[in-house]
Structures are given as structure tokens and as C-alpha cells.
């Protein structure tokens, strides 16, 4: 009774790259001595297809065909069978991070469909200027009923380094109706597919308000969004699955008109 087990990893930010050595300690605390059959530590990395409630049916067809892909697996025996003294025991360990065979180590990531582990790329800045007016909008039924507005702005780059914020500026040059809110919506698009077909799903993973209320006309409002660490990863394209990101600029007017402008992003880690 009262035996607690904890694994502590040395690096505070818990980020490791391919080829590095993962080190830490296993801490066992107990009041009494503990009899055990040996302690071993296993590290396993998997690409796993998970079924989301949203897409039951679509996936079932190929769900069974895709087995979890193992990309890393190593086990070490730390202690031979025996007894542990009472109190706190610390056992240090080290794991080399090596890919299994020719598999790529992806970045750890938790999605709706895909859970991945660890990648690199090169980035060219690609600024985008945009103008939003009633005329530029698609998907409008009655263009005449729309209030007049002119929103201009730019994104510093749609190729983003995942650790750096998305930046840019936005100017409401004029708008007949009062602005209620302007938001940045970060959307993840996951595509899973195989020979039988593919499924695509877009999920909002973060929504950041950049303007609240009727902003001053003609004054640039900064666009600034930090990418959430857990829900984003570099844009990924493999034979079996794709993970892409998009940002929507959503302008909400006081008469409940919703204006959205979409920008695909390419994320990478430098």
C-alpha cells in the first residue's frame, strides 16, 4: 500500500528531437519495502487512427485496414527482481531517440483523428494582402441587403514558424454597420485516406478576438496569434494522412452579419 510511481523527465519543456537522448528518473516512494519482479521502462511511439464520433460510418470502411503504425519502440530493464527499500528511490534512465527502420519521427500531436509523435522544414515568408468588401464575398445570397464596408489588411506571412506568432494588421476603413467583434479562428484540417477514399474534417482549435466593439475607422488593429502548443504541429502530408491549418478572419457586425475570409497556412518548425 501507499506505493507511488512517478517518471520525471530532465528537460523542463519536455521537447526532444530525433537523435537526442531522453533522460530522466523514475521515482518510487513507499512506506515499506516493496517486493517486485523487476522494473522495466518501455518507450513506444505510435501513429494511431482514432474514430471520432462525428464520422462514424465514413471511417469504418478502412478503419480496420489501418493498423497502428509503430514508429519507435525500445525497452530497458532498470532493476532486476528484488526488493526496494522503504522511502524514496530514484532510478535514472536514458533513451536514445532513434527511428525504427525508415520511419519518420513526427511531432507529438493530438488531433481528432490522428495522434502523432515528432520533423523539419524550410520556410519562405509569404505575405498576403487582403481586402474584404461585399463584392469580394462568396456564398452570399442577397448581396443587396449587405451593409457597405471596406476592410483591408495583411498577414506578414502564411508560412509560419510554429513557435512564432501569426502577425499582421487589419484596418476597418469604413463600415456602415457597427462592428461587434473581429476574431481570428485557427482551423485544423485533417484528411485521412487510403485506396477506398478519404475523409476530411475541419475543426476550430483556437479562436482569438482581436477587436471588441466598434473599432476606430482607419486605425490599424494588430493581428497576433500564438499557436497553441498542443493542438498544432507542422503541416504534414503523408501517404495515409494529412494535417493542414487555416486561419479565418471573422468580422461580426452589429446586425449579425458574419464575414469570413479564409487563409491557408503552412506551419513548420525551424
Amino acid at each position, binding site marked *: 500500500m501507499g506505493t507511488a510511481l512517478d517518471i520525471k523527465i530532465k528537460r523542463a519543456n519536455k521537447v526532444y528531437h530525433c537523435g537526442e537522448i531522453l533522460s530522466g528518473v523514475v521515482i518510487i516512494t513507499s512506506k515499506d519495502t516493496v517486493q517486485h519482479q523487476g522494473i522495466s521502462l518501455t518507450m513506444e511511439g505510435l501513429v494511431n487512427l482514432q474514430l471520432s464520433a462525428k464520422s462514424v460510418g465514413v471511417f469504418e470502411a478502412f478503419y480496420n485496414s489501418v493498423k497502428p503504425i509503430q514508429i519507435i519502440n525500445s525497452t530497458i530493464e532498470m532493476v532486476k527482481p528484488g526488493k526496494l527499500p522503504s522511502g524514496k528511490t530514484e532510478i535514472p534512465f536514458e533513451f536514445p531517440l532513434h527511428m525504427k527502420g525508415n520511419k519518420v519521427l513526427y511531432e507529438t500531436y493530438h488531433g481528432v483523428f490522428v495522434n502523432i509523435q515528432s520533423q523539419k522544414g524550410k520556410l519562405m515568408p509569404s505575405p498576403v494582402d487582403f481586402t474584404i468588401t461585399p463584392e469580394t464575398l462568396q456564398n452570399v445570397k442577397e448581396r443587396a441587403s449587405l451593409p457597405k464596408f471596406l476592410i483591408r489588411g495583411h498577414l506578414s506571412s502564411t508560412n509560419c514558424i510554429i513557435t512564432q506568432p501569426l502577425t499582421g494588421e487589419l484596418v476597418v476603413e469604413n463600415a456602415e454597420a457597427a462592428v461587434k467583434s473581429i476574431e481570428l479562428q485557427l482551423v485544423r484540417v485533417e484528411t485521412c485516406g487510403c485506396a477506398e477514399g478519404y475523409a476530411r474534417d475541419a475543426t476550430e482549435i483556437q479562436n482569438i478576438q482581436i477587436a*471588441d466593439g*466598434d473599432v476606430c475607422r482607419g486605425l490599424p*488593429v494588430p493581428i*497576433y496569434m500564438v499557436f497553441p502548443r498542443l493542438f498544432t504541429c507542422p503541416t504534414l502530408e503523408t501517404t495515409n494522412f494529412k494535417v493542414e491549418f487555416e486561419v479565418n478572419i471573422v468580422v461580426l457586425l452589429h446586425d449579425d452579419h458574419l464575414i469570413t475570409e479564409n487563409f491557408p497556412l503552412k506551419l513548420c518548425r525551424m
Partner: protein
Amino acid sequence: MAAFPWHARSRNYVSESEVYKLESVPLDFGDYHPLKPITVTESKTKKMSRKGSTSSTSSSSSSSMMDPLSSVLDGTDPLSLFAAAADPVTTTSTMDSTRKKRDKDDSSAVGSDFEPWSSKRSEILARYTTTEKLSINLYMGSEKGKAATPGSAVSEKVRTRLEELDDLEEGSQKELLNLTQQDYMNRIEELNQSLKDAWSSDQKVKALKIVIQCSKLLSDTTVIQFYPSKFVLITDILDTFGKLVYERILSMCMDNRASLPDNFSPESVNDTAKETCLNWFFKIASIRELIPRLYVEAAILKCNKFLSKMGISECLPRLTSMIRGIGDPLVAVYARAYLCRVGMEVAPQLKESLNKNFFDFLLTFKQIHGDTVQNQLVAQCVEIPLYLTLYSPAIDWILQCIAYRAPEVLLTEMMERCKKLGNNALLLNSVMSAFRAEFIAARSMDFIGMIKECDESGFPKHLLFRSLGLNLALADPPENDRLQILNEAWKVITKLKNPQDYINCAEVWVEYTCRHFTKREVNTVLADVIKHMTPDRAFEDAYPQLQSIIQKVITYIHDFSLLFSVEKFLPFLDMFQKECVRVEVCKCIMEAFIKHQQESTKDPVILNALLHICKTMHDSVNALTLEDEKRMLAALINGFIKMVSFGRDFEQQLSFYVEARSMFCNLEPVLVQLIHSVNQLAMETRKVMKGNHSRKTAAFVRACVAFCFITIPSLSSIFARLNLYLHSGQVALANQCLSQADAFFKAAVSLVPEVPKMINIDGKMRPSDSFLLEFLCNFFSTLLVVPDHPEQGVLFLVRGLLNVIQDYTWEDNSDDKIRIYTNVLHLLSAMTQETYIYHVDKVDSNDTLYGGDSKFLAEINKLCETVIAQILDHLKTLGKEELI
């Protein structure tokens, strides 16, 4: 019982004193001996100097008459004018030098000359209040703070935490409606407390939730007139939060119990602390709504120090431009104020973002007159002038941060920018309250011009003049403009209809008037105030301001003859009709008089006015008045009485005392003072006559003595009476009023039996014996020289006193009585000497009267024997007690 005959040793006091006395050093008093009588030559100069002046120079003190300057002193004497002119120069120059010195110091710290937020805080809370109902809208998720179980995978732990954060939006909604302002403040205080509780019980997520929800309240502008106060309350919570986070991370940096130095570098911060800090910033970056994200990040701005050197200097400009996203101009300007406040605290050297904040505000200024704001005001029934005043605290603060140790050029630039926006009154007012007073004062005429040009419908003009006045009270405008400034300003002030607006302005400008102008202008201003405040008894609502006006007038006019010659001063006092305020004002005036009046006076104007004021104070005393209050009033009145002197006109002086007695009969300390003063007057007379009273002076002295004799019985304190009887008796004796002196001493003797065992001293009951002992010894020393009354028996007074002592009920087992008897022995022994040790001039004591007559000596010896018998008796009882 065997009698022990007593034989006193005969002593030669003269030779004894020659042998034993210390070597005497001749003392040269010169002209400044305080008791030196006034000489005839002086009275001549006095006559001459008094011809042309009615001022208070006609005092009797000889030293003042020597002073050639004081004879022409009526407020315009060149030396004091010069001194007055030189004073500000020296003070400003020293101020400048200290300021320069301070500037050289580390500019990264804010000096004590920066008015801190805490002092603004209460001011805002007091000023921006509402009677309307408020609401708090909180979306608190269920308490899942402890949900994360230790041991589960790290990623899951973090995920649950993030889910909880998301919970805020979906969680249970708690809406508190219909709160009064006080309820609201209590609620916010509760939230502050629960934040601290959550933090101390390690529920960091809950703490963050509370902070986010609180800062969300700042986006709500319903009941807009309360917004500034709401801002104050909620930023308190944010400050608490910022401090908690900072301290927590700082404590993680402790290596080997040694904490980091104050100016640590990010390299010395360990990884765990950095990671925790980063986590906070990531969490905050994911807050959905703009306003909470902004405020919470600003609250932990200081934590950037853990991550990188440049952190704060990169963060501030980003947050500054983020505020542009806030649509409501009022919400935005307060957000800017908060950012400036945090910025000044954390990195005062980063002036750039302060300026940017202000310029951004100017850019959005037009929004105030936009439709969105106007519609909101109509919906809330708030007038535009009131709405504009809501901006003041925030703009004042931003400008104060900018102006702090800023170069003149920058201030000028700021002013120009404000001017460009059509002389907006709101900005102008903030410029005046935030910038250095010297800066404003030097441009007073410009400002007056700008104020005049301002739009009538906007920001209230009287506030502008008030702000200008406040600056002019601190710093002087150019010499040539002074009168014009006053004229221009007063022209506007006098037209203010609302008495409250008027008095708030006038109060400030009175100081300027007193500082730079003469009695004429002050009089005009006071007259104008009276004119405005009298209709409908408007003064009743403005006592604090009126009081402050009086306060200012008496700080600047120290010459009381000048002050009371300001015709409207006394009518002004008449406006204080509520008694407690009236007494307060009188006290202030008397305090000033005692502090500043250098010479005694007989100026009838001053006397009349001050008597009136003192009478007011005296009349306020009733059965409920506290002892302390009485003591204070009495001290003030005494101070006045001491300053009154009619010079050699002793008769007049006495009649003044008589008048004072009738006026201040309820305050005992004043009566005591009067008795002392009259005694002093009698002695003064004696000195003038060099001890030889003429018929006239003898009569006058007797009048003085009579004054004392009839006044003393009205006192309630027994020891005061005893001591005054003795004292007055001594004075009477010195003035050869023997029968009067006898009367005093008899009165004292007959009073002794009434001395109670315990007396009340400073509110505590204490035994009276030590006081009685002291008094009696003193009395004995006097009795030595008191000659026997021809019609009474030998040593009539001594015998009387002995009888009284005998009959007095002494404390059992106390030695007091015996101690007194031994002192009586001293007295009796001294009385048997051929020549007494001391005499009163021109009074024959018993040594001369009896000439060592044997019958007299035998009488004394008999008395001695009785006394010794008593002493021995006591010793016997003591011996018995010892045996038992």
C-alpha cells in the same frame, strides 16, 4: 509628658553666605533685559513714530522700539519685501539642483516625486459613484481545480487543465443583479479574497479563471458613471494576481535558498521556472476575448523578466497596439491607463510606449463623438459633460506618466497635439493636471485663451479653471501677466451659476490671489464669494471649501492688523453658521495668530476681532465638550491674552483683563491666566514706580489685588486656588498691601482642610499628599516674612495653619504630618534669628517688628516644644509598631 525645650542656633546669614556661596560672575544684561523698564526717551520716539501709523507697532516692549525697521512695518517695508522676493528664487534653485541630482540617479526607478497610483485610487473611488443598480456576470465553471490526478500522463494533465479553461465559456453562469454600489464593492473584494484563497490552496487554474472573469467585467459599460471606480476595483485584483504569479516564479528560482538579486538576468533563471512562466504566457495567449487577454497579460508583464532581457520592451508596444482593437473609447482609454501604470512600475525607462498610448488615444478621440457612443449615452441618460469627466482619471494618469521627468520639448509637443484636436477641453484639463505646474504657469495666458475658446457644451469649464488655479497655486506665472490672469479667470468664475461649481473654483483661486496680490484684491475676491454663497444659504453645502479659503488667506496674510482691515474678512466669517465649523475656523485663525504674531499688540481692530473670535470659541463650550477640546480652546485664548499689551497704559490693560474675565468665565485655565496676568501687571507697576507707590498707583495695585481676590474663588481646582492665593498674597505683600496679603493667606489657611485625599489629575485619581506637602512648604517660606497683624495675636497665621494641620485627617501610618512638623521647626527656628534670611522690600517683617523681644522668642519656643512633642509621639508609635 516631659517637655523638650528647643533652642534655635543663632545664625549669621551674611557671613555664612560669604563662606559658602559660589563665586558670582557679574552679568551684563545690556539693553535686552526683558524686565528693563521703559525709559522716558523711548516713550518720546514712540510718540513720534506713532503719529502717522495706526499699525500694531505701538507695542511696549523696549527691544522692539530699538528696531528701526519695525517702526515703519506696515506690510511694505523694503527688507521683508526683498526677502519675500528672494525666497522663491532660492527655493526653486535648490529644487532644481536636487531635481537634477535625482535625474542623474538611476532613471529606471520611479522617484518619490511621482504621485503613485495608490493616492489616485481613493480619489477616484470617492468621486465616481452611482446610485444605480449594478450587476456582475460571471461564468464560473464547476470547481474542478483539483481534478487533475497526479500520476496520469503529463499530456492528459495539461489537457484537462486546458479543458477547464475552455469550461469558462460553457460553465455555469452566475449573474448577480440589482447590486448597490456597496454590494458590488463587497463582491469584488470577495473575488479578490477567493483569488488569494485559490492561489494559496494551489488551485492556479481557478485563480486564473477568477482573474479572467473579473477583467471581463471591464468590457461592460452599463452604469457608465461607475466605470472609473469599477476599473480601480478590478485592477486591484489584477495587481494581486500579477504579484502572486511573479512571486511564485521568483520562488522557483531560489537556488540553495539564495534568492535572486533584484536585477537578475534571465540567464540565471532555471529551466523549470522559465517553463512555468512560459506556460502562463501560453495560457493567457489562448484566452478568447480581447479585453481579458490584454489585462491579464499586462498584469503579469513583469514576469517577462524571467524569459528574456528584451521581453518587456517587446511586449509593451505589442500590448499598446492591441488596445486599438477595443472599440469603446472609454474602455480603451482605461486599458491604456492600466498599461501605463504597469509599464511605469516595471520599466519606467520605456517612455516610447507611454507616448504611443497617448497618440493612439488622440487618434481614436473622434470616436467619442461617434454614433456608437452617443447612442449608448442616450440609452443610459448620461449627459455629455458628465461622460467626458469619466475620462479624466485615465487621461490624467497617462499624461502624468508621460510628463514625469519629461523634457520641456516633449511637453510642448504634447500640447500642440492637443491643440490640433480643436482645443478639446477634456485634454486641456488633463494636460493641466498632469504636467508640471511650472510649465503650465509659464503659459497661463495661453491656457486661459484656450479655455475660453473651448466648446461650451462639452467638458465643464469650471473644472478647467480649477485645474489652472491649482497649478498657479504651486508655481508662479510671469510677473507681468499676473493681474491679467486673475482678471480673466475671475471674469469667468464669477459668472458660474451653480454655487458648488463656483466655490470649487473660487477656493483654488483664492490662493493665487493671496499669493500675488494685496489686501484690495483679496477683499474683492472675498466679497464676490460672499455674494455668491449667501443666496439660498448656499454656504451650508460648502463649508469645507469656505474653510479652506480662510485657511489659505491666513497662510498668506500673517499681519493681523492687515488681515482684519480686509473689510470682508469678518463678514466672510459670518457665513460659518454651523457652530462646529465656526469654532474650527476660529481655532485656525487663533492658531495662526499665536504662530505668526511676533509682538504684543493693542491695535483695537485686532483686539475687537480676536475678542469676538475667542468669544465664539468660548461660547461653544458646553457640558458635553471634551476636556481636551476645552484645554485646546483655553490654550488658544491664553495665547491671545498674552499677546495683548497696552504698554504703559496699565489701567486700560486691567480693564481689558476685567472684560476678558467676564467673557471667558467658563474656561478655568483662562481665568488662571488672567490672575497671573493681573499679578504680573501689579509687579510691573511696582517696577515702574521703583517700589515707591504713589497714591494713584497704590490704588491701582489694590485694584489688581482685589481682582485676584474675587476671581480665585470661582476656580474649581483646589490646588489652583491654594497656589494662586499664595502667589497673589506674595504679590500683595510685595506691593505693601499688607491687609490684602493677610486676607489671601487667611483664605489659603482656611482652604487647607478642604483638600481631599485624592485628586483628579489627567483623568486619574491620585493621592493629594505630595501636592499638599509641597504647597505647605512653600507657604511656610512665605510666612517667615509676613509681619504679624497688630490686632491679632503673635504668629497668628502660623498658629492658624498649625491648628489646621493638626485637625486635618491624615492618612493612617503616614509620615506626612511629621514631615510637615519638621518643616515647621525650620520655620520657627528661622523666626528666632535676629535678622531673617530674606525680606520683602519695604515690608517690615517680625524681626524688625519685635526686635528679638524675649516674649516673642518665648512664644516661638513654646510652639517649638509642642511641635517636638508631636514628633516624638510619632516616633514612639513607630517604635511600638516595630516591636509588635
